[in-house]
């Protein structure tokens, strides 16, 4: 359908694209991937007939784009990066105009326009002026404009840029539904978009095609370099003499090496093991490490994603790399964060951790504003039952996280959720395991932290104040965020219903804890008034990757699973929450959802984290009672 041969385009002395050749079969969706400025738009403009090529030929439906320019243009639907719309026209009027200039026969126009409006979901906007449409609708009109004359070939230049996650999903679905009947070229720099919508991928960098094939093939090529990333703890002498050789000799391990210059604690080393294709010797590696007398603090499997392929092929390109690479250290940071409990379970003295914690607090004070920002934007993403040490430690990681706008972050969340949903689950499990290990030490430490902090009264008072100040506006950003993710208010309440139900189900087998847990649900909001609880809460906003993924998936994708016949429990929960803490309702709701998150995301209801949490609550209970009446009284 589309054949491109040795296409080049030069502007003056610089080559925008050089010797680009590819072909697309009828009905395929080709993802055109590349960093900004790689030549995607230039290629598409040439194909659409907007720009002439400097050399080379391109044929669409067997027609040369230069010689039969008019005929080719008639067979192409083209959506430029900025949808070309006349703001003063109505949606319908505009589509009629486009149908007319694309030479749709007069008798067909009404039918074609109606069909395009229907496909793009613009039925209720057909008489609205384009000027008054939101960005998402404008994008849809842009797509409708590209399909209104039913072209065999559709060229879409970054169709999802600047849309919110929901709109992105909508547009992707639309594109997918267009495939098969139409041949589509889709350019983007959002990688999951390609793996989700496209049959084939062409990666272009600096004007040249660097890879082509199906998404599976491309990732398969890199599978050879898959392996594990490890963090071990032990003595340095033994590392080179004992550990590395013993692991390297394992079957399936191709090589293992020390990753230099990694910021990790003393006595810890990060290793990278490369494995043979299709062999996963994770178990053996772990056994070998333990057999060498080392502690295994972290083990993560690296799987090649399209992202890796892209980065590998376009490493020279800094501009794009920044965005993509940044997510990696972030993940690593979070993983480091998640390991901290392991120290404790390795029976290290508790006091050390506390010293660290205090450092962390100082850090957070010195950099109080960025942290506060972080807290606001990420608050709802925090599982309440996380180990305390972990959350406190994570303050250090906070300033290092880049403060992307929320929308971007959400995008990246989607990416992550789709690319590496398994690692996330793994990680969640590992956290739960950690927390199982150290349920008692946490409680101990909790107390000791309080003791420690009492002598130096002034700084702490300051800190408490600042934290409280920061935590008050928290409800707004979260509300905003929730709105942006889900425009309707339904999902806000319904996931709760669902989880409420599941909790009840889970808790039925064990009869005693039910009462306790329900208490804790009601009493929980009280904790917020307590400075330390406050601290814990606000500190607990790490793991930007982990929880938002689950949250977001819950909210966006599980809508259809929601049982509508559970109004009672919802009302109950919401009432009790409102009474106890009317101001920060969204926060509390989030907390509830989070609390339930883990039993759901795990296959089996994991009791231990909850147990641990209850212990913490109990510890704080006496102090609460003295200050604030329980929620039941308020009612």
């Amino acid at each position, binding site marked *: 359908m589309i054949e491109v041969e040795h296409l080049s385009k030069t*502007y003056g002395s610089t080559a*925008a694209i050089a010797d680009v050749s590819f072909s697309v079969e009828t009905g395929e969706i080709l993802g055109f991937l590349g960093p900004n400025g790689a030549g995607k738009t230039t290629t598409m*403009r040439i194909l*659409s*007939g*907007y*720009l*002439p090529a400097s050399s080379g030929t391109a044929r669409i*439906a*067997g*027609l040369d784009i230069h010689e039969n320019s*008019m*005929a080719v*243009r*008639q*067979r*192409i639907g*083209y959506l*430029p990066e*900025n*949808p*070309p*719309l*006349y*703001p*003063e*026209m109505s949606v319908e*009027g505009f589509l009629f*105009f*486009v149908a*007319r*200039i*694309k*030479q749709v026969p007069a008798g067909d126009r009404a*039918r074609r326009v*109606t*069909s395009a409006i*229907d*496909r793009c*979901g613009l*039925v209720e906007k057909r008489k609205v002026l384009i000027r008054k449409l939101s960005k998402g609708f404008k994008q849809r009109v842009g797509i409708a*404009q590209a399909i209104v004359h*039913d*072209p*065999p070939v559709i060229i879409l230049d970054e169709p999802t840029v600047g849309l919110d996650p*929901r709109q992105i*999903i*909508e547009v992707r*679905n*639309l594109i997918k*539904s267009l495939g098969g*009947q*139409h041949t589509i070229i889709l350019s983007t720099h959002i990688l999951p978009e390609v793996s989700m919508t496209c049959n084939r991928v062409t990666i272009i960098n600096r004007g040249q095609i660097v890879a082509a094939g199906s998404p599976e093939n491309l990732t398969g090529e890199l599978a050879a370099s898959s392996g594990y990333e490890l963090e071990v703890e032990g003595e340095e002498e033994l590392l080179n003499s004992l550990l590395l050789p013993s692991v390297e000799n394992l079957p399936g391990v191709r090589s293992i090496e020390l990753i230099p210059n990694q910021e990790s604690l003393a006595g810890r080393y990060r290793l990278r093991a490369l494995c043979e294709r299709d062999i996963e010797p994770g178990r053996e590696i772990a056994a070998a490490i333990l057999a060498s007398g080392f502690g295994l603090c972290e083990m993560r499997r690296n799987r090649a994603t399209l992202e890796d392929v892209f980065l590998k092929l376009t490493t020279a390109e800094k501009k794009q790399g920044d965005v993509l690479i940044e997510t990696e250290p972030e993940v690593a940071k979070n993983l480091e964060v998640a390991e901290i409990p392991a120290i404790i379970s390795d029976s290290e003295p508790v006091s050390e951790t506390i010293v660290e914690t205090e450092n962390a607090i100082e850090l957070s004070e010195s950099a109080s504003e960025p942290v506060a920002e972080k807290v606001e934007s990420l608050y709802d993403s925090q599982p309440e039952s996380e180990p305390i040490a972990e959350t406190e430690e994570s303050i250090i990681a906070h300033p290092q996280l880049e403060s992307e706008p929320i929308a971007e972050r959400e995008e990246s969340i989607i990416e992550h959720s789709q690319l590496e949903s398994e690692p996330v689950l793994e990680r969640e499990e590992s956290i739960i395991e950690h927390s199982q290990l150290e349920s008692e030490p946490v409680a101990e430490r909790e107390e000791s932290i309080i003791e420690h902090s009492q002598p130096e009264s002034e700084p702490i008072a300051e800190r408490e104040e600042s934290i409280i100040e920061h935590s008050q506006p928290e409800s707004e950003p979260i509300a905003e965020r929730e709105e942006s993710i889900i425009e309707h208010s339904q999902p806000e309440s319904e996931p709760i219903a669902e989880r409420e139900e599941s909790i009840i189900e889970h808790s039925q087998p064990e009869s005693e804890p039910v009462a306790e847990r329900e208490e804790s649900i009601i009493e929980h909001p009280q904790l917020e008034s307590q400075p330390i609880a406050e601290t814990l809460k606000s500190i607990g906003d790490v793991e930007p990757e982990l929880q938002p993924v689950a949250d977001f998936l819950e909210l*966006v*994708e599980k*809508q*259809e699973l929601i049982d509508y016949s559970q109004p009672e429990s919802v009302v109950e929960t919401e009432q009790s929450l409102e009474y106890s803490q009317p101001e920060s309702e969204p926060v509390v709701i989030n907390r509830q959802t989070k609390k339930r998150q883990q039993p759901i995301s795990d296959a089996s209801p994991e009791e231990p984290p909850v147990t641990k949490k209850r212990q913490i609550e109990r510890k704080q209970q006496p102090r609460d009672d003295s200050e604030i009446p329980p929620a039941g009284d308020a009612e």
Partner: protein
Amino acid sequence: MNECPITNFPMPDSRFPIPNARFPIPDSPFPMLVMISNIIAIYRKELQSYFLSPLAYAIAAVFWLITGYFLIAILVFPDGLIPAIAQRDQMGITEPPIDVAYEFLQLFLRIMGSFSLFILPALSMGLYAEERKRGTLELLATSPLTNWAVATGKLLGVLTFYTTMLLPLLACEAIALSSSTPPVPPAVLLLGHGGLILLAASVLSLGMFISSLTDSTILSAILTFALVLFLWVIDAAAVGIGGPFGSALAQLSLLTNYTNLVKGVFDSSSLIMFASYIILGVFLTAQSIDALRYQRS
């Protein structure tokens, strides 16, 4: 309508099956008809956007206000045409006889012509600059349209809008002239107003070309105004220069050619001159859009 369960996004509707792409699409046996239908499509779109544009209405309002004032001033103000002639009659001067209706038409058309020069750049400034700014030029350039068709359609559209702006004034004129005896010869009326339209078409055509050179509507308006002013005063310069070169320059003057027509003189050279300006403008516009696409970075 059936909806995707996840996103509530409407799925393809079975009532409107998308037929498999129909290709090859038979090329029309009448390319001229296709061209005309394209021109009409662009023309309708242009007209629609003018009649929906508040800017266009503001321009029209100013135009009506000021030309309306001149109309009244010419006729009834103390130093206007009719009081002056009445005074002349009182003083007993009857030679040479004065055709009041003709004089009035001359004066009024000249004033309208001059004033249009200020208004026309404002009408033509957005013709291509807006398209460039919004990126809709990309839509037009990737549609099976020739640049000629687009430029012609646009010119016709804006000219129609200008003509519509003239209509209320023509009504006033008709009222004023209806009382004249003998009536003004229709040829004079036709030539005068035809000249006004031709003048406007020339200016708009050149303005369209300038508009195609830039993304900025303001810049386009200013440049157009400067160019028009230059062509307006070129006959003064021509007189200064003298000789064959001077007379050649004088032929280029918009004012000279316009005055010829307004006088009721059927001067084919004036008609050809205006036609040349119009075609030159359309041609340059088409070329400039082509050049724009070739050099775009």
